[in-house]
């Protein structure tokens, strides 16, 4: 069943650049912990504040930063992120702003910076051009929540050419064949969807999460990070026991909304355990 998983780790195929996301996750592993991955939307509540908030993520222990690209039809997002990105679009956000934000965050931090984007935004610019500009901005790669490997031919070619990571999602319902395909197509890490649902804080971590991680590992994944519904230090610790990285989004967006970059700093420190000198 897992014969589809390529024996060669995809990152070794990159022409020039090694996977920066993989490096960040491996560095955390070397410290005996799971990597912390924080999500914030580009341009929320405005460009400068979103850069400041992302920098706070890195200063307080985030190893990887996801910059979400606001999109008109975010079907995988719950109300908190929807509301934030809708506000950003309403104030006239244009796509090139994302590359400026990525460049600013890369400049100011050591974190690997990914964008998270729905695919039509890549498609409209052209996969090759999007990848070129992302690489030029210093971005590590992209997470594409509505792109499955079956449709990803152009994106895979473009990211290979520019040495970018491409993170595909694997779900609790994915068949072993599909998991193998996803693992083989991914570069950097595989995004394990912990629950069937959209983004948003939840009280408990689904027990599906560990199964998702195990399934991806069985298919040959070297790095599997878990997201969706993660919002507390307890969740981070629990997931960190079996996953290579823990992804938090909605809770951070709510913190930014309610308390600005300083609230993001405080929550990130709490979630990463940085305040206790982890």
């Amino acid at each position, binding site marked *: 069943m897992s014969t589809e998983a390529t024996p060669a780790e995809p990152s070794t195929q990159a022409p020039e650049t090694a996977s920066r996301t993989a490096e960040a996750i491996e560095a955390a592993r070397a410290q005996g912990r799971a990597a912390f991955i924080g999500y914030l939307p580009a341009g929320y509540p405005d460009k400068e504040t979103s850069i400041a908030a992302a920098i706070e993520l890195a200063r307080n222990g985030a190893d990887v930063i996801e910059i979400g690209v606001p*999109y*008109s*039809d*975010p*079907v*995988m997002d*719950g109300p908190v992120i*929807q509301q934030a990105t*809708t506000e950003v*679009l309403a104030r006239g956000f*244009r*796509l090139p702003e994302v590359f400026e934000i990525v460049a600013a965050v890369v400049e100011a931090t050591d974190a690997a910076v990914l964008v998270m984007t729905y*695919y*039509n*935004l*890549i*498609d*409209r*610019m052209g996969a090759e051009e999007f990848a070129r500009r992302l690489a030029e901005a210093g971005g590590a790669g992209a997470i594409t*929540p*509505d*792109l*499955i490997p*079956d*449709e990803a031919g152009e994106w895979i070619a473009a990211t290979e050419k520019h040495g970018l990571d491409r993170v*595909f*999602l*694997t*779900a*609790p*319902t*994915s*068949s072993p064949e*599909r998991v193998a395909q*996803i693992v083989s197509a991914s570069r950097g890490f595989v995004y394990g*969807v912990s*629950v*069937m*649902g*959209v983004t948003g804080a939840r009280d408990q971590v689904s027990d599906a999460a560990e199964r998702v991680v195990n399934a991806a590992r069985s298919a040959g994944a070297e790095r599997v990070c878990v997201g969706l519904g993660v919002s507390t230090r307890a969740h981070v610790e629990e997931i960190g026991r079996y996953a290579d990285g823990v992804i938090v989004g909605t809770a951070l967006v709510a913190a930014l909304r309610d308390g600005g970059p300083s609230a993001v700093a405080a929550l990130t420190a709490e979630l990463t355990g940085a305040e206790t000198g982890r």
Partner: protein
Amino acid sequence: MSAPAEETQKYRDHEGPYFGSFGGRWMPESLVAALDEVEQTFREAKEDPEFLAEVYRLGRDYTGRPSLLTEVKRFAAEAGPARIFLKREDLNHTGSHKINNVLGQALLAKRMGKTRLIAETGAGQHGVATATAAALMGMDCVVYMGSEDTRRQALNVARMRLLGAEVVPVDHGAKTLKDAINEALRDWVASVEHTHYLLGTVAGPHPFPEMVRWFHQVIGDETREQILTMEGRLPDAVAACVGGGSNAMGLFHGFLDDPEVALYGFEAGGDGVETGRHASAITLGRSGVLHGARSFLMQDEDGQTVDSHSISAGLDYPSVGPEHAYLAETGRAIYEPVTDAECMASFEMLCRTEGIIPAIESAHALAGVARLSRKWGAEGEGKIIIINLSGRGDKDVETAAEWFRMLPGQENDPVAETETAEKTGDESPSPAPETGVQS
């Protein structure tokens, strides 16, 4: 690759996931397993005589199939010499073609052991049909509807609630059909274990475009048989309105491989495609991905979906089914926009000349055909055009009354020129589109 007789069967029975460069599955991985299950269940059911018999029985005993084919001589006479027939999907139970697909998919949902149906709706016709099927088959039902549309179609909201469905107004984005689909997809990601998403048009991820078409093929098959019986020959053209495009695909399918039959799809031109306020995805769109399919898409330079506009909630969608995109690209079908003003003029004309109140969606096809017949002029002598009258206009009476200023407090002045000018900012009420028309 599925058609054995490539030459004689170039377009019919085209299977997904791709229609040329269109279609596919641009969807979150979380839903892929469910889509696979739907596809497998659909493929098995199509080969199961019991399933086919049940679809047929429901069509006959519940929907009222076959629907009539009615020649409309007085309507035709006002346009030109061509003869015009209407395929009367408006006479179906629940008042539109939507019931064909809904009953079929509800049967599939039961076959998969699902107990809950969710659906999006624009005009409310698909929501009403889904609520109806849920009532008939004893299933739970939630319908997502843009809050702009719940306002425009308050009567249909009440109908769905009477039928036992929960109607959830969607307040995000443009508050119309596309946003209702987003919300239905969010529900489905979380509920897929026991819920079937009963998508109402030939759009969305594979297998929906192929499957929804299949349940509507009965429209084209019946029409073909009826016109051959009545006139002993095929029509010169068939026409339908196109939003997502399900009623059009159903009708077209019966004639796809008859090159002598022209296929016309009429999109919602809103205030006119030149104003930007329209829903003509094929006419002015470009390739993009939305709601699971690659198709023509109204989008801005960044790839953000552009809000569509139409007087008809059911056509107010910024994309179109991928098979239509394919038929447009290959030139097999011709797609043209029809403005709100043209549409309403033909709406009124059918009411007045034939005693049939059409859905505003379907009136776009009436207007497009009237324009076509006018353009043909004497050349149209003896030609036959069949229009899919996809729905009845009961739900639209208030919108029409407002348009024609028949409501209390409005001046009772039907089809007044001042009215048209006011609505469109156009000085001339005559339907004469100059832009973007491919003919």
